[in-house]
């Protein structure tokens, strides 16, 4: 699939999965989508390896936009991007947008075939 992929990263797996469910219902199957959340002990948190795996599942040649909830989700996502193979690194971005609304808006934009920069800009319009 050549549409931009969407990754949802939340401290809570329930929030991440719920946001992903909303994207699927509102946008459909046209966009590669993956989510992750929670720490290794089953508590709240985010993990670099889970984010790397989610990027892989949502991978698209057009790139991947990541939506995050709070602090550590963003820092861990930045870290994950740096650990990607060089040819993928420049095609993954973290959007500065609210996680649920951002995911839906980014996925809607992505489903129309927009490039990564446009998908990101559209999601970031939600941030004041």
């Amino acid at each position, binding site marked *: 699939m050549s549409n931009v992929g969407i990754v949802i990263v939340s*401290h809570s797996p329930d929030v991440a999965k719920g946001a992903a469910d909303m994207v699927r219902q509102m946008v459909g199957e046209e966009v590669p989508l993956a989510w992750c959340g929670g*720490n*290794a*002990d089953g*508590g*709240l*948190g*985010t*993990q*670099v*390896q889970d984010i790397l795996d989610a990027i892989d599942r949502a991978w698209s040649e057009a790139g991947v936009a990541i939506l995050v909830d*709070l*602090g*550590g989700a963003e*820092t*861990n996502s*930045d*870290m994950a991007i740096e*650990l990607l193979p060089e040819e993928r690194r420049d095609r993954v971005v973290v959007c500065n947008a609210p996680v649920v609304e951002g995911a839906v808006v980014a996925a809607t934009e992505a489903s129309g075939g927009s490039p990564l920069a446009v998908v990101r800009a559209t999601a970031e319009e939600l941030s004041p």
Partner: protein
Amino acid sequence: MHIDEALRKRLIQTVAETVIAHAEDLTELDQAIGDGDHGLNMRRGFEAVLADRDKIAAQSLPKALHAVGMTLVMKVGGASGPLYGTLFMQLGKSIPDEPTLADATEALAAAFGAVKMRGKSDVGAKTMLDVIAPVLAALRDGADPRGLPALADAAAAATKPMRAVRGRASFLGDRSIGHIDPGARSTALILRAICDTLGAA
């Protein structure tokens, strides 16, 4: 200074055990202004480092530091993973096999810069940077390294009146004032463990 395999083992052991022993204190600090997981996350990360102690210590000093950083990145599961991970990985990238104090100072300067970028933060924002900065300044002024642990403790305590502008604590605004930053505290603990081990070597 020649930091041989036995000393690298002791460094890993002491730092990890110090963090693990203070996990509850760190969590308590984090419950006041963060999400209360700093101690648990740091313990998880340093337990993984401790489990790999021999494998990590068998590598050269730069590679060992990098391996500690990578383990923390993959295992901590909170913002402190990439932050401490970046600190150790950059130290590993910048330090030579047998560093002088001046080499160690410049490696810490590079690590300070890397953590600043990773956390998109700076001095005065109630973070670990508020401990690293004065330690770095003292090293550059040629201070006696034996005074560094006390300096770091004082620097961590000095985050108490600061207002957080990054991380979860920033949501509290002025209510973050009056509590020591847990990341500043863990940085001071780790520094003391390193200084004690090197001082006794």
